[in-house]
């Protein structure tokens, strides 16, 4: 069974609701793939906390683990689930009321 869009979006929003996971995702988005140690150097978060959150993010499919140098696991952001979450946001952000009001005004003119 492929995952439902709603389930994927929920994983993304749950991840983003936590400030530590948000910081980790933001760091991976801006700086590219990194190890837990790299992230601990860059963020005011302990390496243990980062490793725990990376595990949760990996389980949710939001980051992917890949072999790095010296047998260190590197984490890379996965964009596909983010795109599904963006679809949800696009539906919320779609404004038909404004254009339909404008259509009415245009016709009445």
């Amino acid at each position: 069974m492929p995952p439902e869009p709603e389930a994927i979006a929920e994983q993304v929003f749950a991840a983003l609701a936590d400030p530590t996971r948000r910081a980790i995702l933001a760091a991976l988005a801006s700086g590219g793939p990194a190890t837990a140690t790299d992230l601990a150097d860059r963020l005011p978060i302990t390496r243990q906390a980062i490793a725990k959150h990376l595990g949760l993010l990996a389980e949710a499919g939001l980051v992917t683990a890949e072999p790095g140098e010296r047998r260190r696991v590197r984490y890379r952001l996965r964009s596909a689930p983010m795109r599904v979450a963006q679809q949800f946001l696009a539906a919320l952000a779609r404004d038909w009321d404004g254009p339909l009001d404008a259509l009415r005004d245009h016709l009445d003119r």
Partner: protein
Amino acid sequence: MGFPDRIERTVELAHPPAKVWAALTTAEGLGTWFGDQATIDLRPGGSAQMTWAGGHAADMRVERVEEPTVFGFTWHINGLPEDDPRRTYVEFTLEPAGAGTRLTVIETGFAQLPDDAYRKAFEGNTQGWASELGELASYLDAA
């Protein structure tokens, strides 16, 4: 369902369908009430574009043209990268209502699954986790 796939609005307009149809399907109409400027090739498969003074643009592909009752097009989902193939479908339906028009707009496709390539990536991911998490666990144990 928490993930809205479909947006629907109905408005009553005090103008006959022919006039509403022109506002929806001509460059002059679309470029006045919707975009700041518009172009449209009004036939199934034809291209249409609206642009706004701020530099934003919306590219549409005309899908249904049944004058003066149904006009449908697809367009890009806002916020997704330009190269993403997913699009939503917008359909306007015009019904005479007294001397005016009942106009319904339905936009669908927000909850569509990604295309097959993405779908495979998701499935591959789910299956791959067992081994990758195993590696993570051994790495953490060794640290």
